[in-house]
């Protein structure tokens, strides 16, 4: 009460008149970019913004959003403000030894963790993926999906389904603090018939138990593995399908038990998608679309029962209203895979990387996408670079700051980390066994590389 009167009694209100505890509370709800911005307004606020307690909260938030990897971030409480800011800077730039001053240096490993699952055979379907917090690895171990605890090299969970005769071909996961939502893509064999499904499971990481949230039948396919690039984000999960009908993109809403199958203008054209909260990015030949997930609402259909055999009727992407469309027809680009990552320091900001083909050239384009809460979304192109001849890019993921893996020649080493924003500049050599050519996972923020050998899963962190 008295505080209120006090504020009214002075003509010029100053933010610094607010008690420090309120200013701390405001900082605690801000993104990092806002705190940094406030720190530049005046001396008092500069001092408050760089208090250790503020950055403890900001880092804790990054940890809760699973942007900080716990294996490469030591106990946060013991760090100084400057050290905490360095951790945030590293999220933005990637490992230091990946940005070589000179050409072709060797990246320095800071930590190596080995897990020991029983690995049946080398195969295309041996796929490890480190969850963003660094606590667990999801491991597609020759048609079975497992979850391993990184801390104690222990099998936490194995995916099960009522049908015994089934093979898992792909998965995607979104991690929260205590659980992880996993999209499992599998094909079951029943009475000489093959049927493909996607299942969304909610895995409790503490107990290793899971809840099946949804099972949806995928359109019929001759291929036992019609799945490419599955993704989960919030209530939505999506996967690209190559089925008898043609090239499709299937989206499910596990919360509402609805689904939707999209197609490009013709069924031979592949749609590539990326999910971000509340939105979907699509590339269709030379066009890039931003769609709000609300815009799909009139096209959703109830999930087909698991034993149902109705073929879905695909919705044309052109019939879905778009928030934004970027047309690159004049540059003769053909957009391919899209990778989109949220900014660790700015809410509603995404870093988008697109692999694209242009005649014989292989390009990487990057866009900055802003989806502010109360304004129109906006994107702007940041970089475009062309892969040098003789180097190959085989769809290893691209990180938030634009790092990916390439190898010379035919999928054999040496493997090098390169920045897709400037492929002609330096690369950093990383030591990986030849088997890593099939699947090496790059963590989007920490840059940790996860690959499997004949007998183990290896996670490598870089300095």
């Amino acid at each position, binding site marked *: *009460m008295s*505080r*209120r009167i006090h*504020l*009214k009694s002075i003509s*010029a*209100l*100053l*933010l*610094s008149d*607010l008690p420090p*505890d*309120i200013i701390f*509370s*405001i900082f*605690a*709800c*801000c*993104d*990092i*970019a*806002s705190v*940094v*911005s*406030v*720190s*530049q*307004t*005046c*001396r008092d*606020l*500069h001092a408050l913004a760089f208090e250790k307690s503020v950055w403890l909260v900001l880092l804790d*938030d990054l940890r*809760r*959003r699973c942007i900080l990897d716990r294996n490469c971030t030591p106990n946060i409480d013991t760090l100084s403000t400057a050290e905490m800011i360095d951790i945030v*800077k590293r999220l*933005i730039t990637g490992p230091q030894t990946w940005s070589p001053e000179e050409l072709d240096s060797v990246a320095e490993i800071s930590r190596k963790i080995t897990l020991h699952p029983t690995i049946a055979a080398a195969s295309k379907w041996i796929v490890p993926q480190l969850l963003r917090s660094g606590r667990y690895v999801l491991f597609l171990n020759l048609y079975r999906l497992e979850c391993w605890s990184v801390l104690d090299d222990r099998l936490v969970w194995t995916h099960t389904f009522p049908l015994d005769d089934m093979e898992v071909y792909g998965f995607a996961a979104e991690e929260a603090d205590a659980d992880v939502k996993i999209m499992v893509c599998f094909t079951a064999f029943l009475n000489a018939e093959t049927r493909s499904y996607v299942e969304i499971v909610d895995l409790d990481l503490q107990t290793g138990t899971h809840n099946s949230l949804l099972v949806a039948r995928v359109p019929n396919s001759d291929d036992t593995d019609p799945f490419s690039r599955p993704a989960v984000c919030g209530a939505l999960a999506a996967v690209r399908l190559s089925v008898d009908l043609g090239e499709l993109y299937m989206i499910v*809403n596990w919360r*509402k038990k609805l689904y939707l199958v999209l197609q490009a203008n013709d069924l031979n054209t592949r749609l590539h998608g990326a999910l971000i*909260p*509340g939105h979907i990015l699509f590339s269709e030949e030379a066009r890039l679309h931003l769609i709000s*997930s*609300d815009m799909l*609402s009139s096209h959703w259909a109830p999930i087909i029962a698991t034993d149902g055999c109705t073929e879905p009727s695909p919705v044309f992407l052109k019939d879905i209203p778009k928030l934004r469309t970027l047309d690159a027809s004049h540059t003769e680009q053909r957009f391919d895979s899209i990778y989109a990552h949220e*900014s*660790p*320091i*700015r*809410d*509603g*900001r995404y870093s988008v990387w697109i692999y694209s083909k242009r005649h014989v050239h292989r390009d990487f384009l990057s866009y*900055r996408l*802003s*989806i*502010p*809460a*109360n*304004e129109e979304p*906006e994107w702007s192109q940041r970089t475009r670079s062309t892969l040098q001849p003789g180097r190959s890019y085989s769809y290893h993921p691209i990180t938030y700051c634009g790092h990916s893996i390439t190898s010379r020649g035919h999928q054999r080493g040496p493997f090098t980390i390169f920045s897709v924003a400037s492929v002609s500049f330096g690369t950093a050599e990383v030591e990986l066994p030849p088997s890593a050519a099939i699947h090496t996972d790059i963590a989007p923020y920490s840059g940790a590389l996860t690959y499997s050998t004949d007998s183990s899963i290896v996670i490598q962190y870089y300095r």
Partner: protein
Amino acid sequence: MVLLVTSDNEQFQTEKDIVERSVLIKNMLEDVGESDQPIPLPNVSSSVLKKVTQPSTGPTEIDVRGRYLSTASTTVESPSRPPILEQSQDETRKRTTDISEWDQKFITVDQEMLFEIILAANYLDIKSLLCRRWLQDGSQHDQGARPPEEIRKLFNIVNDFTPEEEAQIKKENEWAEDR
């Protein structure tokens, strides 16, 4: 329904699940148990409480609410609560565009009201309202955090850095720009 009494003795009938977004009121309700007794809020005036809990009462608010509702109706999960109370504490970081226009309007309240709302939000312990949104978005110049100059203007902050200091600080914080 819960009866709230403000510092200027106005009474407000408010739905329980709405007021419980305030940690303070939630605790108070738990303390008194099921009761019709009014809950006094001696640090909150009626005009501020309206801003905080009942967006559909005042004439300007109806406009905001109407626009808000029209946005909400197109979303899959349309919220039924006042937007500022929509985010519970553990959801404060959840990305949502639903609350946008509401918050946008908040930015246009005069400075005195802005401060009163901040104080009230702090007193009532409503984290989502104490919020980042004043410092983020809604900016004409930048799609992310407001630039320092704009925050100075919004909060009437006097720049007491020397030009050299300002340049130095800008340089130190360059890493956070455009990311």
